């Protein structure tokens, strides 16, 4: 399989860009738990290191770990590493994650290019069973379609039924009410998030049994995104909070974020197709809490509204202007 960084230039994916900015805004509110500088960021920086750069610059996080499994191109990753402070750890997430020091509060973004598979859920569980209160976990997966790639199969098998899912993921990870409809289109994105969320809860459940009531951890979902720059992608993000620190969570003000989502629904990030001139026109009536007040001019209403919702997080298109 060709590594995804050889196909996609991450910096040119506008919805992903917006998602990264929104995640950054979420992470910036973690300061109620501890100073952001004391947090550690763990991600998959690829050769672009966009996430590592943003969170270092915007949040001041100094301890940055980028996990990279493409051992053969190690030199290229080292070459592209923008800051000395970024630690490149070669290996799969499954190898690297369990060996990290989890007593440290961390911002963890498991940003996969692949659709959900049992290995991803294992990684999620690794984090859920080790995280301390104040650690935040974001998981992104592709949501075009699930594929069973178990080694004994002659070729990968598309998963289109509950039985197919069960065969690949096992009984314990298969939702009771899984329907074929939940495995296609945008519904798969919802299903994927729900299964990730269940995995986190199952991991927490197994370790909470051994904790004092005050130390019992919950995973408080903060947001969920879905978008399609090319392939459909989805992300779920939340923070581990122990009973004693629930007040911190409430004080952080996550609930007031326009993209706060703690249920099954996600914010669909749709980058509006607008010209730079149109965007500048809209900017003049922003911010605007009541979208009826937006001075649209000739701009289609749906696009204008999308823009008003996302403008703070969109990449700057000015350079494309003639």
């Amino acid at each position, binding site marked *: 399989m060709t590594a995804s960084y050889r196909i996609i230039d991450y910096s040119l994916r506008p919805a992903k860009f917006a998602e990264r900015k929104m995640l950054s805004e979420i992470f910036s509110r973690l300061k109620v738990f501890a100073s952001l500088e004391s947090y550690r960021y763990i991600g998959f920086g690829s050769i672009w290191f966009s996430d590592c750069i943003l969170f270092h610059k915007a949040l001041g996080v100094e301890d940055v770990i980028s996990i990279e499994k493409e051992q053969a191109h190690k030199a290229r990753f080292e070459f592209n590493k923008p800051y000395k402070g970024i630690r490149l750890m070669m290996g799969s997430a499954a190898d690297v994650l369990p060996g990290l020091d989890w007593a440290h509060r961390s911002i963890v973004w498991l940003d996969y290019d692949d659709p959900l598979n049992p290995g991803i859920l294992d990684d999620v569980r690794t984090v859920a069973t080790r995280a301390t209160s104040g650690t935040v976990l974001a998981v992104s997966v592709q949501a075009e379609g699930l594929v069973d790639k178990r080694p004994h199969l002659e070729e990968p098998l598309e998963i289109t039924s509950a039985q197919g899912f069960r065969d690949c993921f*096992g009984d314990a990870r298969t939702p009771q009410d899984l329907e074929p409809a939940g495995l296609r289109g945008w519904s798969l994105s919802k299903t994927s998030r729900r299964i990730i969320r269940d995995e986190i809860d199952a991991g927490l459940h197994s370790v909470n049994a051994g904790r004092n009531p005050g130390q019992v951890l919950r995973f408080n979902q903060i947001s969920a995104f879905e978008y399609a720059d090319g392939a459909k992608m989805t992300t779920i993000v939340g923070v581990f909070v122990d009973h004693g620190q629930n007040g911190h969570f409430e004080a952080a003000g996550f609930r007031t974020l326009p993209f706060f989502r703690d249920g099954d629904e996600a914010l669909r990030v749709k980058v509006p197709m607008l010209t730079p001139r149109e965007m500048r026109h809209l900017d003049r009536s922003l911010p605007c809490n009541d979208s009826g007040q937006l001075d649209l001019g000739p701009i289609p209403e749906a696009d204008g509204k999308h823009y008003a919702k996302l403008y703070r997080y969109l990449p700057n298109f000015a350079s494309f202007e003639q």
Partner: protein
Amino acid sequence: MPNEELHIDAMPTKAFFVDMLVRDIPLERAVLDLVDNCIDGAKRMRPGEEPDFHGLNVSVHLDGDGFEIADNCGGFDVETARNYAFRFGRPEKAASTDYSIGQFGVGMKRALFKFGRYFEVHSTTTKQRWSMHVDVDTWERDEGNWYFDFANVEEGQFADAEVGTRIIVKRLRPEVSRQFASEHFKRQLSEMIRSHQRQFLAFGLAIDFGGLHLTNTDLRIRSGGQFNPAIEEFAVDDDTDAPVNVRIVAGISESSPTAAGWYVICNGRVILSADRSESTGWNSVAEQKDGIPKYHNQYARFRGAVFFSCRDSKKLPWNTTKTGLDASTTVWQLTFPKMLDHTRTVINFLNALDNSIEEYGAKASPLLVALNKETLAKEVEKFRGPASFSWNRTPQVPGPKTIKIQYSREETKIQSLMTALGVTSAKAVGEKTFDIIFEEQGGEDQ
């Protein structure tokens, strides 16, 4: 109503009590309990999480006529004998040994009653020497008297060479006598002592079994070059004065179907060895549950060890007899999911190794060659963490990386291509046709 009429006599007869006490314990276990008592003595003499036991020894001798165990591990004084050691059940205020492995006040008596109808205990500390002899038949007949009597008690200054405890049992029960006389039983028992007490042997304790010096079993993990085992360390209850320290080491060793699996060690005592059952995550009912497949000999290189240590032995994940795992304990529940992660990581590597061996053959597999060349076996106790599992992902391959292609076509068609291409095997047809189409599509230049 007079007082005695309000009481119903529930006092057990001694014979019944003794019979109940010894019924549920296997004979091997009872011997191990006595060895544990010696080791607890050693721990009192040389406290600490990783003590030096050099110079301390335990010797065990058994045959069809009797049983004897002797140690030089400090002995116990009259006070302890009188108030604690021979009481049934451990009194609340009994002093406990830090990091102890002995059981809660039943081990020694139970073993003695289990073996035979007569026993002697002799113990010498630096200040006291005492002994006792018990004829169980006589003691049982004297209902109502639950005392044992000292044969003699001496105060004084005793030399280090004299300090220790010696226990002798005679008039063995017939079934015990038969077992103790059996060479097979003795071999099994010596192996059990060796594997259960391996860490104390590693600390320097000498255990002599029927004249044979026991050595610690080999639990080694390979490391070196780019290969490293996963090491995870954490503490439970670390805000108390008796935290449980946990260290997990998981990696690879020689391919050995009998030694592969998880080892669980509580305060130095091995309570599970080479475990590949559901207790340690293997062999799950649902094939994919938790991502760990059923154990298969392909995983015969897997070795994992979990060390638990705590000065308060009640907090450790063992059952009340300290002989097996209690999976319902807090500490185990916090540790188990972490073990699963490490198992999965090592299994992923072993699958890659298996593929490499299948692809290139055992002699030429770049991964196996790198593993053998770069690594050395090291005792599992020596690893300190934390560290991620790692392995050489880019071992030197003879020439560029290759991938095997496998497919089937009608036999007659393959034969006609064999003729056309002038080759003599189906494999050669495949290779030749690949080369032809590759050149046709532009060869190396594409």
